[in-house]
């Protein structure tokens, strides 16, 4: 059981997060909830990316007094760097999205996305 959790809490868990986020994006009516779901998806993907670079019983890839040489086992640093970038991008998108939501709310006085259909066809 513990083994299962260890193995699947990261892959399975992050995919679950993506799933929840995606479902939220597809089904919520409140625009802010949609953005939160989007953020959830981002988090899920980021977790997955980090998990893909994980090495059992390895250290953070920093050479310091504890691990004075790169001979020690390190986890993969690249996914961490990528995640750093993707977090920032996710933040930027969310912030922009929130600003848009504020503006849309000004116009329609509602956050319900199904009532905001000024553009169709």
């Amino acid at each position, binding site marked *: 059981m513990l083994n299962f959790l260890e193995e699947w809490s990261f892959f399975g868990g992050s995919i679950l997060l*993506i799933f929840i*986020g*995606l479902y939220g*994006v597809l089904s919520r009516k409140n*625009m802010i909830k*949609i953005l939160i779901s*989007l953020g959830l*998806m*981002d988090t*899920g*993907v980021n977790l*997955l*990316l980090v998990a*893909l*670079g994980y090495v059992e019983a390895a250290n953070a890839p920093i050479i310091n007094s504890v691990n004075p040489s790169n001979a020690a086992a390190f986890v993969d640093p*690249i*996914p961490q760097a*990528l995640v750093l*970038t*993707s977090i920032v*991008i996710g933040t*930027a*998108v969310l912030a*922009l*999205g929130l600003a*848009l*939501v504020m*503006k*849309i709310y000004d*116009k329609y006085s509602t956050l319900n996305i199904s009532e*905001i259909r*000024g*553009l169709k*066809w």
Partner: protein
Amino acid sequence: MVNLTLIIALPLLMAFTMPIFKMLNSKLPKFIALLTTAFNLIVLSSNFTEIMAAPLILELGGWQAPFAINLYVGPLALVAAFLINGSAFILSIYNLSQDYQFDDKFYLLFLMITAGASGMVMTGDLFNLFVFIEITSIAAYSLTTFAGGSSYEASFKYLIIGGVGSVFLLLGIGFTYSAVGSLNLAEIAASAGLINPLLLQITALLFLIGIGIEAELFPLNFWVPDIYTEAPTAVSGIMSGAVSAAGIYALARIFFTLFPAQQFFNYLLVIGVITLIMGELIAYQQENIKRMLAYSSLAQMGLIVTVISLGTEAAVKAGLFQLINHSILKVLLFISAGVLISAAGSKKIKDLAGLGTKKPTAAFGFTIAAMGILGVPFLNGFISKFMIISSSLNADQFLITFLILAAALIEIAYYLKVVQKLYFEDLEIEVKNTAVITVPVILLTLLIIGLGVYPQLIAEPLEKAAAEILNNSRYIMTVLGGI
């Protein structure tokens, strides 16, 4: 020969400096944008012969080619970069007579959308591609809202779709990195053959969705009409002329270089044809001229994807030619339509009646571009139509050829409606003052006729580009050759 990194670096620098330029002189930003795009064109031209001889690999940060980020500029990327920066240049000329509310921000975003699209076509790194796609789309989200009105809604839609798309893309990148251990396109391509077929399929589909959103494929493209309709004219123009071209490039690069399996080309073929037919059919229904142009763009994207995914050299060449034509023509269509719209004060086609005599330049621009798209002889569209039909028949795709021609027929129908409205109907309306677009119209008309009469002009780049994209082992060799 000037280092090609500048194509991305200089717009970045200018964009960061834009607020300061604005403080110096409020007119400065638009000229800076114009000069930067012009400079980019010069940089590209100065590298032309070199790249035609052999693809150029630019190592960023001085790190050896396959191990860090590198730019790969082959003939195809060069063609695409020319399209992107050329469109941006023309639209910058158009912008000279426009006034935007936050003009420093507009021009910095405008430069960034250009740089982002250029980055998309030049990068040789998967994650870097993602970053540039995000730069491009975030710039597009913001640029759209310059028009006010309903543009926030359009932008929000694009943001949601783009957000979902970026998750797909990131997942695909994660899978690829985890399996292959590298983010460099060449290295991935080199070991893509060893990947488990199921995993390969899932990964490729993730990319198909993620990039399909940028390449405007059905059914991922419903944000497009909203954005194109609501955005300011220059933004519609750059989205249609440059960003979609970059999307097509990315799609071609991913599927020809990374996953050249027939299965995916079949998918793309089907999707492309559906995009084409659906785009034309819906465009025919439109009463709003910009929406009509938007759906027409979608259809053209579908056409290009269809033709390119036939996968023969002639077909790829035809598709690329069509891509070039599409950029030229759509930019012209959008700026002329923009002028006509602001002259009439309405986006409805029926309100544009009789503007042919009142706004002769814009109406002429629209007409010549429409005729170019419809493939009138001696205009560029004729050559590409000929090449498309020829290559698709050569690939024994009778049904596809038939569908392409049927779609072209619908296209004729709705473009001519507008042209006739412009010239042969009259409506007593007060014409408002509008931007002056004489210079862009002349430049683009010359291009349209020039390519129609002497297409040989771009034969060499197209030839090389098609050969390059179809031969992924050469790509791998060129990048990995340094080991």
